[in-house]
């Protein structure tokens, strides 16, 4: 019967759409990934040539945040002051912390842009087209790196893998 067939195809289309939306990550996502593992996969995909690890003092100085307030807070900053590569990963617990991190990263980015504006075209290129801010599943990631796209994929992937294991 035509009606049945038409009806079947109609609702099949709707069901496929809903399934598709779920697969592409709508809704709430779990928040219990292992920060160390996430950080490792992020570092693996980044171009680390110009990066060195930062002390808590340097994190405070560059971002005006206190690493002790967060469960996990790691920063890699430029080896020389004329580079702008940066990699920051923080695990936060509530929206106010997320907001604070977002503002801190934005300030840092703006400050760097102002410092190199009109003067360092390569640095401005990295800051402009290769910077990324991503907040997901309780993790805040800020990066300025030639491999920013790979870093983002690695970050998202690591979180999905970690979440699905629970």
């Amino acid at each position, binding site marked *: 019967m*035509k009606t049945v067939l038409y*009806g079947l*195809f*109609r609702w099949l*289309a709707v069901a496929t759409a809903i399934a*598709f939306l779920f697969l592409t990550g709508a809704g709430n996502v779990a928040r219990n990934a292992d920060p160390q593992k996430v950080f490792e996969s992020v570092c693996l995909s980044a171009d680390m040539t110009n990066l060195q690890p930062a002390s808590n003092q340097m994190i405070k100085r560059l971002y005006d945040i206190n690493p002790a307030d967060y469960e996990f807070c790691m920063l890699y900053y430029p080896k020389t002051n004329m580079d702008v590569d940066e990699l920051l990963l923080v695990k936060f617990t509530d929206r106010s912390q997320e907001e604070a991190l977002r503002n801190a990263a934005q300030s840092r980015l703006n400050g760097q842009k102002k410092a190199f504006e009109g003067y360092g075209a390569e640095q401005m290129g990295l800051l402009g087209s290769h910077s990324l801010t991503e907040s997901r599943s309780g993790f805040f990631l800020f990066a300025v790196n030639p491999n920013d796209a790979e870093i983002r994929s690695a970050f998202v992937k690591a979180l999905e893998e970690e979440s699905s294991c629970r």
Partner: protein
Amino acid sequence: MPLSELFFVFIFLPAAIILYRLTPDRLRNALLLLLSLFFIAWGSLSDVILIALCIAFNYFTALELDHLRRSDSRILKKLVLFSGIAVNAGMLIFFKYFVFLINNVCAVIGTEFSFTVPKVPVGISFFTFSAISCLCDVAKGDENAVRNPLDFALYIAFFAKITSGPIVKFRDMARQLNDRAMTAELTESGMKLFIIGLSKKVIMAGCLGFLFDGIKAQDPASLSVAGAWTGALAYSLMLYYDFSGYSDMAIGLGKIFGFSFAKNFDHPYSSVSMTDFWRRWHISLGAWFRDYVYIPLGGSRVGRARNIFNLSVVWLLTGLWHGANWTFVVWGIYHLLLLLLEKFVLKGLLDRIPSLLRAAMTFLLAVIGWTVFFSDNIAYAGSYLLRMIGIGGSGLADRTGLFYLNGGVFLLVCAIIGATSLPSAALGKLDRLMERRIDKRAAAQLMQPVTALLLALLMLGCTAFMISDTVSSFLYAQF
């Protein structure tokens, strides 16, 4: 990809035009569909999948409605129609309004709930309305369902109109899918319209945007009357040039590929009343709401109370359609009240006022409405409006206000004149003058290359603006 982007104008469109002319007639729709899917995929692959599924759903629903209508099963047909509209509306509500709804419910209840909505498919406010229009027209018997899935897919996904309209009703395009004339006149006319639309959007709206952005960047508490009005005027004109320009481009594109779509804007700022305004601004939206909400509810063929109710439903929905924010609802109600006033209170009075004055008043009322429209929230709108009438703020004119007004006055005057029907009237006069001096045929022959030359200059100007603008976002594209 936006129609006003360099990639579209310089690569996609010429390729589409050339391919289209080389393709045999029977394959042309398939080509357009392929190009449209590519066009959508260019922005996001997930959009193509969702739109394809939406097309599939509506295609089968339309066929079912067609079948049920022929077999005269009224109740089942109504059920299927209802479910079809519900799914389309549901899709629109989910992507566009879910977060807004949740935030408001949570604000009332007092909880917090975070939800990530996936990326909104391009043109969702437009193609869902196109789909609903199809289902209604088929159910009513005005049109038959489209048998060829490719043709139907083209109706929904045609790249000319999918991004931002116009909302072409099914009954206006159904026959053209299989039967449309490709004449030189139509193609030329389409190309001219496209270039004019591009200039409106990229040059005029671009320059006006600077004025508006400057005022918007100020704290509304510190605006002066001059500053507030400069910003409001700039926005009103910018919105017109941006949206009517984009519509011109869409309709022009349609013509290039043989489709005739009705115009979406008809010099709305020359309107002499609000009723007149809504017959000239975003015509396709008004027509859609009239044909698929107002008239099914009874329209004006009912008692006054019910009539007012019908109008209220239409205007609340029209406001909401523009975005998930209370400001749009307020804006919708504002226009509703003005229309009710004109319809039931002022009836004959307006005719006694000279039309120039009426036009000015209507324009002013529209500008006031737009200030609510561009506000991020009601508080901002209230603050801004108070500044416009001189309450609070920095007095009649402050440095900032004068900076933008002084710099922008020539642009604003050009924009206002350009928005009225004066330019086309002037061109018409020029045409007739030439016809009297020279033989009519020679005049027509001469006008063509001259027009082409002038449009070439416009094209060059548009290219300059498209290259130098880093961010050019079409305002209505967020809908």
